[in-house]
């Protein structure tokens, strides 16, 4: 009865640019602040990422959302797998997005979600920076030179003039590849840091690693500095989390139970009260982002389904206009 559009990763890539994604992410943050977005806390399916059974070294997260400014609903089902997936040389992230028309419930699209995840994760940081970092020029410290490191850089370079990137990765080869790939994206120079401390000497520090080592030291983040720990585990010292002037997150419920704040939150040392604002509240103008030049800010955009649904809906609209992708009647 209804036709569902099918879009491959290649088609999604052709349909949307980082610029489009940043615009959609900013509008969706504003919608979150204005409460026109519905985004329940994601539900995980542990397939051996941390659990002892089953043995697959992976997980899948279900991230449903409704986005008011696009009047669109859907779900991203996305996960990461090591194990056999890694052996086969496949990317860590696997993902599909389903979109529905919230008026009558028909499925409008099934599309790859991995590319959208990578782009929107970068865009979230860039949009947050737009409201938290007062200048046009910045020096970026980057931990993790993989796919996420690339998209973080691409997104930030859309909104800022990057004078310098200091990149650190435990695999020097990855840093060298990053420097080669990003030389036309970064306006200034790219420096491969010899040790983590050298990389952290920057205005803005972005961490996109799988590390559990709390490797970013409190002392490394200078007055006025902003740290984005985006990994699944805690990448910075407890002391920085406890001493930062502001903690700003994208989704309070999610951020207290995953990533950088999980451990301190579960120990009762960080509660909802310690979170100054959500990025949505800041973008919507309901709360201030930065109030003084010297504040040190901890910002954690861990990722919400709303961003994926927004970006996927923009891609679908373009595909509808261009007649791109497949069509299928499931029911």
């Amino acid at each position, binding site marked *: 009865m209804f036709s569902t559009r099918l879009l491959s990763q290649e088609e999604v890539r052709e349909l949307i640019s980082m610029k489009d994604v940043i615009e959609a992410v900013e509008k969706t943050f504003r919608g979150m602040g204005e409460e026109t977005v*519905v985004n329940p806390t994601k539900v995980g*399916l542990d397939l051996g990422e941390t659990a002892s059974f089953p043995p697959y070294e992976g997980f899948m997260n*279900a991230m449903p959302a409704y986005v008011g400014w696009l009047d669109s609903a859907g*779900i991203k089902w996305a996960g990461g*797998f090591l194990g056999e997936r890694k052996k*086969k040389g496949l990317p860590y992230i*696997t993902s*599909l997005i389903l979109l*529905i028309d*919230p008026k009558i419930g028909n499925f409008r699209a099934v599309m790859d979600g991995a590319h959208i995840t990578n782009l929107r994760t970068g865009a979230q940081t860039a949009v947050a920076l737009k409201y938290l970092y007062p200048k046009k020029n910045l020096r970026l410290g980057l931990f993790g030179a993989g796919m996420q490191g690339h998209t973080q850089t691409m997104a930030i370079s859309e909104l800022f003039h990057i004078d310098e990137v200091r990149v650190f990765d435990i695999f020097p080869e990855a840093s060298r590849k990053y420097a080669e790939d990003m030389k036309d994206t970064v306006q200034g120079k790219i420096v491969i840091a010899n040790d983590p401390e050298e990389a952290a000497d920057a205005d803005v520090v972005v961490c996109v690693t799988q590390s559990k080592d709390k490797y970013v030291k409190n002392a490394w983040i200078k007055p006025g500095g902003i740290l984005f720990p985006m990994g699944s585990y805690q990448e910075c010292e407890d002391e920085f989390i406890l001493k930062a002037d502001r903690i700003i997150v994208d989704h309070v419920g999610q951020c207290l139970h995953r990533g950088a704040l999980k451990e301190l939150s579960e120990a009762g040392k960080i509660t909802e009260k310690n979170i100054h604002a959500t990025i949505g509240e800041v973008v919507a103008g309901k709360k201030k982002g930065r109030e003084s030049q010297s504040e040190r800010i901890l910002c954690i955009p861990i990722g919400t389904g709303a961003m994926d649904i927004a970006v996927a809906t923009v891609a679908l609209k373009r595909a509808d206009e261009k007649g791109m992708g497949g069509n299928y009647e499931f029911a």
Partner: protein
Amino acid sequence: MGTLLITQKEIGELVSMPEVIDAVERTFRGMGEGTVINPTKLHLDLGDGESGLPYRAGMNSMPAYVGWLETAGIKFIGGWEDNPGKGLPYISGMMLLVDPRDGRFLSAMDGTLVTALRTGAQTAVALKYLISEPEDPVIALYGAGAQGRTQAEAIASSFNVKEFRVFDIRQEASNVFAEEMGPKIGVPIRVVDRPEEAVEGAHAVVSVTHARDKFIRNEMIGEGVTVCPLGSFRECADELILSMDKIIVDHVGQTLHRGALKEVSESGRLKEEDLYGTIGEVVAGKKKGRENPRERILCIPIGTGAMDVAVAALAYRKAMEKGVGSEFSFI
């Protein structure tokens, strides 16, 4: 890497009710034995007609991993209250399957027929362990809609049913049901005028209605009767629920917050320890089902993602064998 797309019509041709019942029984056993992972479903509220969004609809995200099939998947499904009035189906749903070893998306398929089939099969499997008359039972059925049809089909395929007694608030629906289903399942179907009449001499009561008026009263249910209230709202009187000898559910977390038990649970009159056990524990032999012919048993298989994933995996395997469905490469 292709993902197999399967339509509703194809699913109907690929799987038979006895196969669905077998898959559901094995999955219940897996739940009892701890080889199934089934987080509590996550709801995306699109409005209830009074507050929030204007759609009178909601979507559930139901991810699960089924050990005996080594398959992970998710069902994204919801109901639109205003759809039937527009000539559109009430339910809209899709399923995605993932190979948990390498994270590849195996299949995307319609989720509505899978739901109807497994919902019938869940009751049939539970009754195998709980009914007081396994030879030639009489079954009272409340609700002659789409769900009533798959309930009758599943029960008739598991038991040599002596008679179905059908009641619906629209007698016309019951008449059509009897005409259509009688020949299909080869069981006499008697249309009755009142709910009380249906239950006289019945061994099991299966209720699939949208009732909120607690029309199944305590005095209607005699010794030895098994009652399965499957509606989303309030079909059973409080005294009935509170006086049953055993309450058996499919998923403790879900059944205390939805459907028949919601009200008595949220008002504190029914606690988790008042539940006798799960269908999975009974099927796995960890707990006894019916222990004597007089017990009055309340059984609530509200529906779990694991059953959907199991039935969808079965459809996918048969589709691969037979070359049914179309492939699409999302990446």
